[in-house]
């Protein structure tokens, strides 16, 4: 069986800086995979390559065997990839419900139909009480959840989450972890996440891929990865205790 997402020999250079260097990995359907690594390791570049925001110099990305490389971001979304942004991008002047509605309209052209779907997702991400507020007035944790809700509303086959736990308190992190795991288990939603918060990585992911300077240096179960000497050296060894498990 072909894996849902295949990344093959992907490379991208920015003016001599090799942001991503010959990286390959696969994401099997229904799995939760975490992409970790120090700042500047190329994680967000990897997301932008998958989502069609930037084009790779070499290599390609496939979803269920279908080539995504060369498609525009909206076409990648249509193919079944939902994504969030590290720096959240809510539609600030729209209500929380309308933010999610815009996502839902992608596969449900009728407004009433899309709104009904949006309301379900609103409740799923526990944004119900904020339904009619304008998105600009939300707190950061709420904005992070809105980001996930909007991506989810496009009914993706795989969800790319870029640091959705950053800036959350531990209790909020645990709640979101629970939510995502629940989503994964109930709907078999495949998730690829970039995360610095090891607490979330350890609790959520089936496998972890470690990037450093654009190179994949390790891959395995969360436990294997945190015990890998290469990872400890380049990542955990060089970072403060807060990100340690």
């Amino acid at each position, binding site marked *: 069986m072909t894996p849902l997402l295949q990344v093959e020999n992907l490379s991208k250079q920015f003016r001599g800086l090799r942001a991503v260097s010959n990286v390959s990995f696969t994401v099997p359907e229904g799995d939760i995979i975490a992409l970790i690594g120090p700042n500047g390791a190329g994680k967000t570049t990897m997301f932008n390559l998958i*989502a069609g*925001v930037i084009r790779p110099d070499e290599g390609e990305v496939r979803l269920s065997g279908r080539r995504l490389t060369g498609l*525009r*971001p*909206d076409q990648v*979304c*249509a193919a079944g990839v*939902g*994504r969030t*942004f590290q720096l959240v*991008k*809510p*539609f*600030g*002047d*729209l*209500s929380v419900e*309308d933010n999610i*509605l*815009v*996502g839902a*309209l*992608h*596969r449900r*052209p009728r*407004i009433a139909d899309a709104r009904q779907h949006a309301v379900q997702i609103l409740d799923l991400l526990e944004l119900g009480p904020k339904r*009619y*507020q*304008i998105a600009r*007035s939300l707190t950061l944790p709420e904005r992070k959840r809105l980001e996930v809700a*909007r*991506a989810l*509303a*496009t009914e993706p086959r795989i969800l790319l989450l870029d640091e959705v736990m950053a800036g959350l308190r531990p209790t909020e992190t645990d709640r979101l972890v629970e939510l995502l795991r629940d989503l994964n288990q109930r709907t078999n939603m495949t998730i690829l996440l970039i995360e610095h918060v090891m607490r979330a990585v350890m609790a959520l992911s089936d496998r972890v891929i470690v990037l450093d300077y654009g190179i994949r240096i390790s891959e395995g179960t969360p436990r294997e990865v945190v015990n890998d000497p290469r990872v400890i050296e380049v990542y955990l060894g060089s970072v403060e205790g807060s990100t340690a498990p």
Partner: protein
Amino acid sequence: MFDQLTARGCAAFGMLLLILLALPMFADSYLVSVVTLVLWFAYVGQAWNVMMGFAGQLSLGHSLYVGLGAYASAALFVHFGIGPWAGLWLGMLLATLAGAVIGVLGFRFAIRGVHFALLTIAFAEFTRIAFDHIGWLGGSGGFFLPVGDAAGSSPFDLRGSPALFYYVILALTLGALVLCRRLLHSRIGYFWLAIREDQEAAQAVGIDVFRAKLAAVLISAAMTSLGGVFYAFFYNNLFPEQIFSVSRSIELILAPVIGGIGTLFGPIFGAFILTPLAELVTWAIESAGLNMPGIKQIFYGLALVLIVVYRPDGVWPWVARYLKLVRQSGDRP
């Protein structure tokens, strides 16, 4: 149908509508012509608002579409005797084509914000210069429609009393309001708002931003050109220097800017504030015996500065909130 309005807002709107409908029965022709002008700016402002207020694409060259609508319908009338109700289709077609060229150029090459606005100015400007040299349309000397008894007074040729023009522009303004309301609550309307708020995020949720933005330009251009058709038959004279000028483009956007960009009632509200005040200023200066050409422009500039500093969201959202004419954000619709 105006689900944002409260009961009080609906009542106020209904009152205004009744007054406007009955106006020519009790007002003198001067007042009727002033309100005609108000409604014209409200209509064209509403049309511009589709591009800027909904889709977030700044056009500072909307005089282009006014001019094309005006010249196309006037030329058909003068040279071929084809009335404006038929001629407006040519005007709309030409304006949409011009909009398509600007939109495709701008959006295909990812020209955004100020640079896109400059592109729209450039198109209006070189069209102005081109029309200066089209002898068939009078060139820079102006193009004139027949007036007086010779022209007859057939509503089918849009020749008639001030009241006729008044009702035509009132119908256009109301039509534009209804159309914009429907657009705003349609799929494309939500796509526009998303693009306006954050283009990258809009693309990430599957919106083809090129197509959506182009649709906004085409609809806005077509609507604006109808304003041009009206202009031609109302004033009966067209000069490229006036109709295509940048200052005309600026004048067109003042009503929505002052009333509230992106709101449905902003352009109408803004026009009702601005045009009568400008008339009043001109009248006051004249009756004081002073000769100050350009006083209207100075007044517009001043009004704009005050708005930008004190009410950047426009006057309408503020007034509507204060008088409880619309529901507040956070309330259940």
